[in-house]
Every structure is written in structure tokens, then in C-alpha cells.
């Protein structure tokens, strides 16, 4: 990610240390992950020590310190989905993609993550791929749905 893009985001938020999280969120959504040089730049401009940035970047789930895959698979493991069998859906996603939740495969094809509630409990269990919600999933339906992504 180019430094002037990072600078633009910092300027947009006024460069105050209290906007640290908002700046990091913007960088994350623009770039899909937080590269080291971007974090260094933020720390330097906001005068926030790196150990604090490190803690924030790992404390909040929205941030990633590594590049993400082309397709983001979110398996909902909220309570409603859990009691309707989300564990087995997650098993099936992990088997189909060959990676565990929280990981990205080496070809950067899939990133798999569990999320706590997507607010579509009526359709549970739910898997969201690139923002599109697949509802009323079964293990069989899940592996078939994932085959459609290249």
C-alpha cells in the first residue's frame, strides 16, 4: 500500500491519536490487511508507540496482519446457527478449503473465518462468501457452494 494513501486516510481523520482505531479500520478496508510500513507511518504521524499499535492490531478481530485470500468465507457460529449445526458446517468448510478458521491458503484463494452473528438467524446455519449469504446450509450444500469459487 502506498504511503500517500495512508497519509490521506490519516489526514481525513485529523491525525489525532484518538482516531487511531478509525484510521486502522480505513487502512484495513482499503487494503484488506495492515502492512508493516502503513503501521509504522501511522505510529510516526500520530505519535503512538508501536507496542500499542501492535496490541490494537491483534486485539480487535477486524484487523489482519497478513494478506487475505480472494474469497472471504465467514462461517456464522452465533448461537442460533450453533444449535442448528454450525459446527458441522465449519468442519465441511475446513475440509473443502483445506485450511482452518483464521487461516488463508497459500494460493490466496480462500480466507476462512468464524463470525459470531450475521443477524440472519432465520436462515441458520449460514455461510457468507464475499458478502453473499448462503442460508439453511448442510455440510453437503456447503462443499458444493464452495466449488463455485475460482
Amino acid at each position, binding site marked *: 500500500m502506498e504511503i500517500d494513501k495512508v497519509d490521506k486516510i490519516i489526514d481525513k481523520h485529523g491525525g489525532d491519536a484518538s482516531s487511531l482505531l478509525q484510521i486502522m479500520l480505513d487502512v484495513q478496508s482499503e487494503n484488506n490487511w495492515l502492512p508493516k510500513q502503513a503501521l509504522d507511518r501511522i505510529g510516526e504521524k500520530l505519535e503512538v508507540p508501536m507496542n500499542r499499535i*501492535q496490541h490494537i492490531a491483534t486485539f480487535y478481530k477486524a484487523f489482519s496482519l497478513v494478506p487475505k485470500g480472494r474469497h472471504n468465507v465467514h462461517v456464522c457460529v452465533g448461537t442460533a446457527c450453533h444449535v442448528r449445526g454450525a459446527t458441522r458446517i465449519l468442519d465441511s468448510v475446513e475440509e473443502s478449503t483445506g485450511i482452518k478458521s483464521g487461516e488463508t491458503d497459500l494460493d490466496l484463494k480462500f480466507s476462512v473465518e468464524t463470525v459470531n452473528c450475521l443477524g440472519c438467524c432465520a436462515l441458520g446455519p449460514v455461510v457468507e462468501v464475499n458478502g453473499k449469504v448462503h442460508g439453511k446450509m448442510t455440510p453437503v450444500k456447503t462443499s458444493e457452494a464452495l466449488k463455485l469459487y475460482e
Partner: protein
Amino acid sequence: MSEIKFEIDGIKVKAKKGETLLDAAQDAGIFIPTLCHHEKLEPFGGCRLCIVEVEVKGWTKLVVSCVYPVEKDIIVRTRSEKIDRIRKTIIELLMAHAPDAPELKKLAKEYGASRDRYEKDPSFCIHCGLCVRYCAEVKKANAIGFVDRGINKEICFVPEIASQMCNDCKECFPLCPTSYLQAAFVLTESLIA
């Protein structure tokens, strides 16, 4: 400056407004165990070992003395069956990480805690944060910090800063209640090299 009078374990005590219970007790020579407190650092309230019973106008509650501000006329009890039981569990939970740390062993003896009650998870760090806070608050170096959260929380040096500052300082090493910190630093050093 207004003085606040109250009672700890039957002893009449005076303290300054805004002072914490723990400080007031220590000034009066009354011992309350703690693992994350340090006189030079801001109160943290992480280990919860300094929990005590406070009676305010007939109401009894459990509070953590390192962050509880003194109040007029309260009655403080530093030991009770319940407090001892809670401290024992806290020590046992920590011994799952650092079963041989001398400080924990000493406390375990006092409270009858067993080092083997919980399944071991020898990560050695007990997250008291003394190193992190000392480095930030006293040395203003910020060479070490926390990462992650919940059960995955860890301490972590910032390699660029650590390689420049730590060799000449190492003031945090003796603060560590387990021997983990030194090991973590050696590991960071080897990574930089």
C-alpha cells in the same frame, strides 16, 4: 490535606484522599498479597490477588485493594474464609502456567494451594504486565507490549526498539515474578540476529 480514617483488620488507619486501600495498608505495615502491583507504576488491577472485604455502612462487598480508593469509616478485612478460597484458586490457576515460580510457591504454601489442581499450560508468563508497564511508564521506551486478547494474550517485544534499548537496560528482568521474561528476550534477540 484531608485525612481519611478507617479500619483494617481491627487496626485504625489514616490515609490521604485518593490513596488506594493497598497503599494505605502497606503504609500501616499490613500485608496484602499482590503480583501485579509496583510502587512506581499506575495501579493495574490484573492479578486480583489483593482482593479484600470492605464493609461500608453495614454492607459487605469484595473489592480489589490496589484500585479501590480509601473511604471514611470503612471496615476492611484482609483475610476471611472466602478471600482465602478465592486467592487459593487464583494461585492455582497461575501455577498451571508457572508451577515452579518461587513467588507463587511461597503464596501456595500460605493459602494451601496445589500446583497440580489444573491441567498444565506451561507458558510461564502470568500476564502481570510489570515489564510492559515499567518499560512504558518509567523508562518511556515501549520496547515490550501485549498482543492479542483473552486466553491468547501474550507479551511481545518490539524487535526494532528492543535491539536498540534493551541490552543497556534490562531493568524489567528482576520485576518478572516468573523467569519467563528473560527467555522471551533471548528469543527476540535471536530473531533479530
